[in-house]
């Protein structure tokens, strides 16, 4: 498998600490471009801001494989300046409003520090403290006279940390996919033509992936993402039967989600590679949610597609948790799979 150590961890740290709210992915795009330039024959930034790169293999009958990872994260958009350093904001992507009170953010290209405060509990009346704070009661506070511009994006200001075999960081969804894709491109096997898409605006409707797939016209595609692990105890001590995925069980292979019935040939193929290579994997519990595969599968005349995710807890929150082993095994499984792709894989249903 490709090397997995401090270099990869440092790259992930840099990617998680960067802020790239959907529609404003420049900070991550810059890191991606720097990392991949020496390894791809064609690199370009398309009309939506996707980074598209191709690395061709050698020999005959190469399958054209698209690998996808979205660069964007959920975050905030400054919509009004109320003076004295206070700004109204909208949420971009699916952030549960209950995560916002008492959080630190960075605003704009200069990463101006700000906070989202809340009314002191001492001043609340009746059962106010039992009710959710509506978004229109919250402001981003840059301090006395702090400056931002309407249109600036903001993201959580939390910092990447490693704790034992875990990482705690914001935006593990989907910087861990981006880091995986960078490593796969650097160590691409020669039996395939690799088309990699670092996409934009996944969190607000899979927009980048749609045009990336239309541009590449691949034979097949794999979306690399990060999916929730809801493997927490149930309040009454009963068995948790709706965990989606569990930390520590390896990459999560998708069978069905809210937007895609994943190509059964590819699902079977990935699990067979895992079994043959002794790489742990898990099936994500079929259910809702989705990845860029939802857009890729139905592009052009249809593209056989599957998704693989590194599990993380506490999705779209200021701090998520993932296991390093799950990431390592995701990289190993995908790399091993790429080396085994032949036209026969897609020849029959």
């Amino acid at each position, binding site marked *: 498998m490709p090397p997995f150590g401090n270099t990869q961890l440092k790259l992930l740290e840099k990617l998680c600490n960067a802020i790239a709210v959907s529609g404003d992915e420049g900070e991550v795009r810059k890191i991606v471009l720097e990392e991949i330039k020496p390894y791809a024959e064609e690199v370009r930034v398309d009309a939506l801001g996707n980074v598209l790169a191709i690395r061709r293999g050698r020999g005959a009958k190469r399958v054209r494989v698209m690998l996808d990872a979205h660069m964007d994260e959920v975050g905030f958009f400054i919509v009004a300046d109320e003076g004295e350093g206070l700004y109204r904001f909208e949420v971009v992507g699916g952030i*549960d409003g209950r*995560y916002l009170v008492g959080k630190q953010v960075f605003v704009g290209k200069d990463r101006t520090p700000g906070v989202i405060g809340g009314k002191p509990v001492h001043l609340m009346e009746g059962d106010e403290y039992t*009710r959710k704070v509506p978004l229109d009661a*919250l402001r981003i506070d840059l*301090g006395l006279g702090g400056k931002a511009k309407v249109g600036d994006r903001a993201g959580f200001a939390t910092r990447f940390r490693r704790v034992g075999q875990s990482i705690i960081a914001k935006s593990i969804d989907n910087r861990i996919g981006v880091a995986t894709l960078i490593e796969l491109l650097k160590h691409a096997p020669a039996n395939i033509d690799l088309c990699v898409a670092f996409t934009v605006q996944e969190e607000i409707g899979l927009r980048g992936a749609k045009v990336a797939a239309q541009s590449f016209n691949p034979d097949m595609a794999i979306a690399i993402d990060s999916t929730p692990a*809801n493997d927490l105890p*149930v309040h009454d001590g009963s068995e948790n039967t709706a965990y989606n995925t569990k930390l520590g069980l390896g990459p999560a292979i998708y069978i069905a989600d809210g937007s895609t019935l994943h190509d059964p040939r590819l699902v079977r193929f990935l699990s067979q590679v895992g079994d043959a290579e002794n790489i742990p994997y898990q099936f994500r519990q079929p259910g809702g949610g989705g990845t860029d595969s939802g857009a890729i599968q139905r592009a052009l005349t249809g593209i056989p597609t599957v998704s693989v995710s590194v599990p993380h*807890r506490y999705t779209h929150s200021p701090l998520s948790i993932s296991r390093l082993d799950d990431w390592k095994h995701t990289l190993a499984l995908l790399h091993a799979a790429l080396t085994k792709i032949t036209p026969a894989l897609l020849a029959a249903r």
Partner: protein
Amino acid sequence: MTDILPFLKSLISTSGISGHETPVAKLIEQKWRPLVDETSLSRVGSLHGLKRGSGKTPRPSVMIAAHMDAIGMMVSRIEAGFLHITSVGGIDVRVLPGAQVTVHASSGEELPAVIAMPPARLLPEGEGNGVVEMKHLLVDTGLPAREVERKVRVGDLVSFANEPLELAGDVLSGHTLDNRASVAALTVCLEELQGKSHVWDVWAVATVQEETSFLGAYTSAFQLRPSIAIAVDGTFAKGPGANGWQTHPMGKGVGICMGPNLHPFLHKKLTELADKLEIPWFLDVAPRHSGTDAYPMQVTMEGIPTALVEFPIRYMHTTVESVSVKDIQRAGRLLAEFIVSLEADFVEKITWE
């Protein structure tokens, strides 16, 4: 005037949840030792710093008190590697989901962790989509269950861990500024007093357990029996969600509080002095109880004339409390100048009318 910001940042980065103030007490003791004649700890852990006056013995004394304890959490149960928690002091549960915390493990390690809000389907019917009660929140260290069970025990403390953030206009934001900002103000006061002559003895006191029972202020006032006492604490700043009569603009000066909890003569002297020195101030009012160390000090022994000096804090008891560093400097300077102004016979002049 020295820059108090670096010390304030280290103050809020050092743990000291109510009842467990030792780490922060040590930090404050280090800072105060060169500024006072002697330091000591009370039997319940409050820090006393004595700066002797130049008057004849027995000298009158002023106790300036700021509580050093912080609100926080405590492990109440361990389940499958996740920690259940209960609160120490008045925490607004709505700031907890996604908050960055440190678990002070029995093993001696400080484990970084996150407060987890379980998905609705893992919670009782009807409780998963609103504000999730503390009993359902979990602390996740990211470590495997076996490791957690080896390191953490019921009763271990959990403190907020988001780092201090400097905002525009000399504003510092972070957890525990209530009331470490006041400890910083006391420190500014002690620094200002260096090289100045004062008749009275000064007891600078960092009290324990204000957030839970006022234990420190009760017991230190009893032990030190000051002639007068001044509490220093935060009050409510105007800001998003807080614009009522209890709130005051941040960065525009020091609050000097009045109400039944406070002696009108001291209030008058403080306001006159602030006017004379052109230290901007505002009138804060506490119609019943000030909710600060001023209360326990006032009712100690045969009663102590007590005052309350404050500065506005935004988002009090959240993880992003914010304070103007200028206001802290002003409060420290006002305290120092007030101490310098105290004459040997000041106590005899204190009257109600």
